[in-house]
């Protein structure tokens, strides 16, 4: 049962694996990228419903990834993953058009809930 294609961008392997293991059983097609540049390349070749991106990454950070996606693929919902929540980054992310943000460490239920909400909004639009 194909629910939607989801791209996870994070420099931490364990986060990528956790997301995959949490989302795949729920029927999501999960693809992963180890950094922002790779993620953007994948976006150019494949169509995604939702992108989850870490905030702090080498080379290209989550805010920059968010900005590029908003510019090029405005219909993709972006969810920010933060190592720790700060008011500014959260506000900045939401202002730049992120759908939501999720704090590490998150449980499978939490990430599923956020993804569900994002897809729900996307289908409503």
């Amino acid at each position, binding site marked *: 049962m194909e629910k939607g294609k989801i791209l996870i961008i994070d420099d931490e392997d364990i986060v990528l694996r*956790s997301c995959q293991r949490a989302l795949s059983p729920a029927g999501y097609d999960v693809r992963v990228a180890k950094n922002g540049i790779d993620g953007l390349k994948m976006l150019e070749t494949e169509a995604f419903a939702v992108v989850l991106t870490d905030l702090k990454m080498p080379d290209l950070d989550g805010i920059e990834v968010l900005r590029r996606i908003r510019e090029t693929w405005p219909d993709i919902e972006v969810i920010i993953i933060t*190592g720790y929540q700060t*008011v500014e980054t959260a506000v900045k992310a939401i202002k730049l058009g992120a759908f939501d943000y999720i704090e*590490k*460490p998150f*449980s499978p239920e939490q990430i599923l809930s956020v993804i569900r909400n994002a897809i729900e909004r996307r289908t409503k639009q």
Partner: protein
Amino acid sequence: MKTHVKKTLNSLTGKLILTIGTLMVAGSTIFWYFLIQHQEKELLRNSIKYGDSFIDFVEKSTRNGMLTFQQILIQQTVEAIGSAEGIIRIRMVDGKGRIAYSSIKEEKGTMLDKSESLCMLCHSKSGESVKMQSSSIKMGKDGYRVLNILHPIYNEPACYTSYCHAHPKEQGILGFAEADISLSILDKAIKKQEIAITAYVIGFICLLSVILCTILWNLVSTPLSILTHGMERVAAGELDYTVKIDTGDEMGDLARAFNAMTFDLKKAKDELVEWGNTLEKKVEEKTEEIKKAQTKLIHSEKLASLGRMAAGVAHEINSPLTGIVTFGHLLRDKFPEDSQEREDVEVIIEQANRCSNIIKGLLGFARATSAEKGLININDLVNSSLNMVQHKADFFDIKVVLNLDESLPPLRVDASQIQQVFLNMIINAADAMEGKGTFTVTTRKVVENGSSFAEVEFNDTGHGIMEENIPKLFEPFFTTKPVGKGTGLGLAVSHGIIQDHGGRIRVKSELGKGTSFFVRLPYYEG
């Protein structure tokens, strides 16, 4: 003794007495001399006057005898008068220089010695006749002075018309009457008077000197020595010493001026000493302040580096924790409900979440610097904070009392940070009360050092805090809660936040009775 006299003579009083004494002696001597001279002259003048009267008397007594040419009678009269006391000699000399009559019989009929003053009087210059009587004073044989009176006897009609025709009409002066009168009585009187006056003058000088000395001693010397003594005492540092001279004269003025000066000196010295003391105290206070500021700086630097470290650690640790939590959940769902394995995995997930909470607490430091301030009603913040926790099981049996001052103005604060502080206070109170008791929140206005603050008091009826723990309350990682319940960061973070807002947190606690936390925030002056 000798030096004492010298000292006295050198003193002001000595000099004054010496000067005035010398002037007095000189003045008295001059006065004495002129008085005596005057007296003597006066007496002598009177004596000459009496001498003249006397010779006049002799002439008149012998006039009848002369006119009737009764030589024996004349001689007898002259002898009789000459025998009187004090009369040394009376004689009458004719124009040829023959002594016609004399009280000294032997002289009668003899010629005058040409050198005698009597002759010299008439014949000093050739042909010049004597105009009038004369008087002179010479020394007598007995040592007393003798007054010599010489009186010319003029020719008159009764003389040249007398039957004896002894004198022709042309003759001007017929002869001389001469008297030597002893001045012994006068000399004796003068001597007596001289002695008396001298005695009086000496007595007067002595008396005056004694009076002068006494006056000078009392008016000058005594007050001066009192003043000198006082100055020596003051110079030796005895600034409480006052000179006691209560006279209304210049000495009194001097003493009063001196006392005023000593008083001012003491005041100035006291001020100086006090200034020195307070300076020391001020330096101590400043040093203490600097030490405190330094400690605070070190403390805040520590917190800042801790915050930076926490941020880094949070980023690194939260990713593996995500793995633990996610895979824990996946693993848990593989075990049936109520199985031991499922319970074990629950523990793993729970502990991973605890790690995450510790990290969140640490992050409070990093966040304290990134405040977003707005004008917020403090009472609203208290209410919303309470609403967030009141529905929790920990609060079911706790009575919450609110005493909120509705007149408090809005404050410029970061609402989420202040709410974090309030939540901390509320959760700590609930923990301390262990589920039962009364929790009172009071807001009020306080004024300290002219600045206004809003104060929120969180009072619980919990177990209280041990006195030795109070200073450590705001240190990071200090906790009295059981392991796993508190991170020891809540109050440290709260303290940092409130300090960042220009306020402070105070604690008042009594073991067994409860604790009050006072959170004070400054009024917004914009």
